[in-house]
């Protein structure tokens, strides 16, 4: 796929999410950087992904892993320079890899010069760039997101002697999007990066941009107006660039962020993620079917983004209390594994390093409607360290080989930004890229193969989905279709072998061709199509009428 020839590129993408800091250190200071990342682009190309989503790399006090930005138009010197970023971007594009960067619009760091000016006096021209109040009772009842650390959405500023509004940490004051100057400033920031050549933005915390009395201060019409304005400017000046929404909401609420195809191009499907885990644990397709049944249609030029794990906790905000309890009991028995309303663990440990379940979940991720995102390290089954505090346990250095610092850095181990995973099961001596490259049966090799298969058939990225409803509820089966291209996906969610009879009457006469081995299966006839599946096994069949 050539760059810039296709404005809907994001629909066909397989995205790889990483933090520059975690990936590769080129200068031996113990912290990953853009030069190191650039050196590893061949690996990403080899993996088969075609887009990279970078976590914040801006100058920041790093009290929230970079989501507390102190300068929007620069690169944190620890990671390199703007020139280093440009070099990386060019190299990525050369490999047909697009680059999505973070844009934290809702708030800045309290160290950002804008806030420093705003708090310096009540008469400062920047004062109105943030949300201030004489009391901490305004917007009463609005939920607190970081329950573990924050008591209120207001924080007292001892300098200007008033309260400022913050939906996240108290060192992250919310910008005032009612102020046209703020909106202009943010557009200027985006233009800066678009002019350099980035392909899209993941907009952080979008539901919270605007506040209004008597509301939840989430998903307000005024917030949508801000987004529509940005999108309009983007389409006019930078066609083919993409906006991705982070809105941890129910699908019906997120739907509004697609607008009429005039707000976001993509949005995360947060509620689906925990339900994929739940379905495998429960050995029942019900959670997945239910949430997708509640997912509204979206405009043709839009796409859901789906994922298994990411840099944050596995969020359990979009589940019921009962479901949350079940998830905790199933995947976070140790209280250290829990944070906020979620679970701070990686994919492989959550699956108890069971290769079959890891593959099944990746198979679901890559075959269901939406653009899949793979979190760095999950392609080799990296582990976590839940004792590192906050969510740092899933942000440990990438494990490249079994040598010094896992090949991540030449620094003394003590100098690394984070300890490496070093336990006998998930440690870098056992789990690393080099060793898995050497085996065609490794998780890495399997991941490459499944991505390659997905990339070969556009039906996965753009096709419709029709769920089959076999009586065996341990089996999740669906047909993806795009024009004449049809793929049948059958997943055994259970830990035991299953037989399933599929009603494939609509596809009578088609021959299922197993997509990984390209083997022919018996032609679909009048009778229900009988399949047997081993524990956690899944099939992808191309349906061909020959």
């Amino acid at each position, binding site marked *: 796929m050539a760059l810039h020839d296709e404005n809907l590129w994001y629909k066909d993408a397989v995205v790889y999410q990483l933090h520059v800091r975690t990936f590769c250190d080129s200068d031996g200071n113990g912290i990953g950087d853009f030069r190191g990342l650039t050196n590893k682009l061949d690996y990403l190309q080899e993996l088969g992904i075609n887009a990279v989503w970078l976590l914040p790399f801006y100058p920041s006090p790093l009290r929230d892993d970079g989501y507390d930005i102190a300068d929007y138009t620069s690169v944190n010197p620890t990671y390199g320079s703007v020139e280093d970023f440009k070099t990386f971007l060019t190299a990525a594009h050369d490999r047909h890899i697009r680059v999505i960067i973070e844009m934290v619009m809702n708030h800045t760091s309290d160290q950002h010069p804008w806030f420093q000016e705003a708090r310096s006096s009540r008469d400062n021209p920047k004062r109105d760039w943030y949300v201030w109040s004489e009391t901490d009772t305004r917007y009463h009842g609005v939920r607190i997101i970081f329950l573990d650390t924050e008591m209120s959405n207001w924080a007292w500023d001892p300098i200007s002697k008033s309260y400022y509004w913050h939906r996240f940490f108290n060192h992250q004051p919310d910008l005032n999007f009612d102020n046209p100057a703020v909106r202009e400033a943010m557009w200027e920031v985006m233009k800066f990066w678009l002019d350099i050549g980035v392909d899209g933005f993941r907009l952080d915390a979008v539901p919270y941009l605007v506040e209004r009395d008597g509301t939840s201060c989430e998903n307000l019409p005024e917030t949508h107006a801000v987004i529509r304005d940005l999108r309009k400017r983007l389409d006019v000046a930078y066609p083919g660039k993409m906006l991705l929404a982070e809105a941890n909401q129910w699908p019906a609420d997120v739907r509004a962020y697609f607008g009429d195809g005039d707000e976001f191009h993509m949005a995360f499907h947060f509620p689906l993620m925990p339900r994929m885990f739940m379905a495998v644990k429960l050995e029942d397709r019900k959670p997945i079917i239910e949430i997708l049944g509640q997912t509204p249609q979206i405009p043709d030029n839009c796409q859901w983004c789906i994922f298994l794990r990411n840099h944050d906790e596995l969020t359990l905000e979009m589940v019921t209390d009962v479901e949350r309890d079940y998830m905790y009991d199933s995947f976070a028995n140790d209280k250290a594994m829990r944070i906020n309303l979620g679970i701070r663990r990686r994919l492989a440990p959550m699956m108890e390093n069971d290769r079959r379940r890891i593959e099944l979940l990746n198979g679901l991720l890559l075959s269901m409607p939406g653009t899949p995102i793979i979190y760095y390290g999950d392609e080799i089954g990296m582990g976590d360290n839940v004792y590192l505090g906050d969510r740092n346990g899933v942000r440990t250095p990438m494990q490249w080989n079994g040598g010094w610092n896992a090949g991540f850095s030449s620094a003394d181990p003590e100098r690394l930004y984070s300890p490496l995973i070093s336990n006998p099961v998930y440690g870098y001596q056992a789990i690393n890229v080099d060793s898995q490259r050497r085996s065609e049966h490794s998780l890495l090799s399997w991941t490459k193969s499944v991505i390659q298969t997905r990339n070969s058939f556009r039906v996965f990225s753009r096709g419709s989905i029709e769920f089959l409803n076999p009586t065996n509820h341990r089996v999740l089966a669906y047909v993806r279709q795009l024009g004449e291209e049809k793929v049948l996906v059958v997943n055994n969610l259970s830990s035991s072998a299953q037989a399933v*009879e599929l009603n494939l009457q609509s596809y009578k006469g088609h021959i299922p061709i197993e997509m990984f081995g390209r083997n022919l299966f018996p032609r679909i006839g009048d009778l229900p199509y009988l399949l047997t599946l081993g524990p956690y096994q899944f099939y992808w069949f191309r349906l061909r009428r020959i």
Partner: protein
Amino acid sequence: MVEDILLGDEFLRQLMSVGEVDLLVAIPSYNNAGTIGQTVQAIEESYQQNFIRDRVVILNVDGGSTDHTPDVVSAMDGRKAVGYRGLTSLRTVHRVTTQYAKSPSQGMALRTILATADLLRARSCAIVSPTTTNLDASWIANLLRPAYRQNFEFVAPLYTRDRYHGLLARNLLYPMNRAVFGQRIREVFSEEWGFSGRLASECLSQNVWNDEAVRARPEAWMAVTAICSDFKCCQSFLGPKVPPASGSALDIVEVIRQTVGSLFRCLETHQEHWLNRSGSQPVPTFGPDHELTSDGKPANQEKVFGLFRTGVTELDPILGSILTPDTHARIKDIAALDQEKFRFSHELWVKTLYEFAASYHHAVINRDHVIQALVPLYRGSMYSFFLEHANSSPEEIEADSESLCLEFERQKSYLVDRWKAKG
């Protein structure tokens, strides 16, 4: 394999789809299209409220309904049964139906249920009746929990009954069962009960399914099997037992044939267990605080007494062959009393029943005739109960029931003697 013969291919296909379960609730049915929907809904609600995480199935075993009862079960929309606080089960609530025969048979129904529980490796099971119109979600939970959470194997129900309802159980089945088998399980003959998967497998493996008494009242056989095989038993309070609507109830003769016949048959098959035991032990009881007796309207007393007298007269030769001369004479004496002065003492009632049981054992006459001859005498005991307890409080009635139980226990040695004596 038993289940190979018992379960049809189509039903097995359904079971394949269900797979292993934790909980199974079965509804035996026959022409219950009008009421089975609310039964299924109560079960679904119970699953949604109490067993959100568990693997569950609802099983309908039908005896050849002509009113499309199984179709009602299959067509129900489970989503309507949203549970407490709007919660829904995390897993699929499976519903399967099968027709085990073209005509109803309680024994065949239970055997099908046990085979299903065995195949699905259910840990806890319950059976409920579609005719119990006041069944609700709590009943299901109370039947399932003891076996699921507390390792009990057999869960008998406890009901609140009005004073004139369930007299056969109060005056005969419970006290005699308690005295003979030694456990104070109040409702051995019931339409609702619970059991463990282990007990299901044990019962399924027994070669008793052609026994008429087992086929007629398999629940009593299962209860006695549990007691005599040292499975842990308990009782769970469900709620008020509403008498069946008039017209749908079985004739008393048929009821006694089934229940007393089944009890006497169990005495036969489990004599090794009970002949050398005496006294009785309470069993753990679960559920909220409750009363077992409430007020109610009496039956037609005049007719009951008349049928007693007529029976004693008409069956005189048969009673003479079943009862000892002394007991027979005493019964004829009380039958000759004025209606107002009539009393069937506990002592005489117990002695009469034990002599019937022994005669059944020795088959002094056709066993079915033995059972049928008991019917008029039971009516006499009913009438005596009416007279004695017309103005009694529920507590007084319960106290009298307990004294009757103790009388059964006191005279058990008499039963043993008669049982062992040559016929």
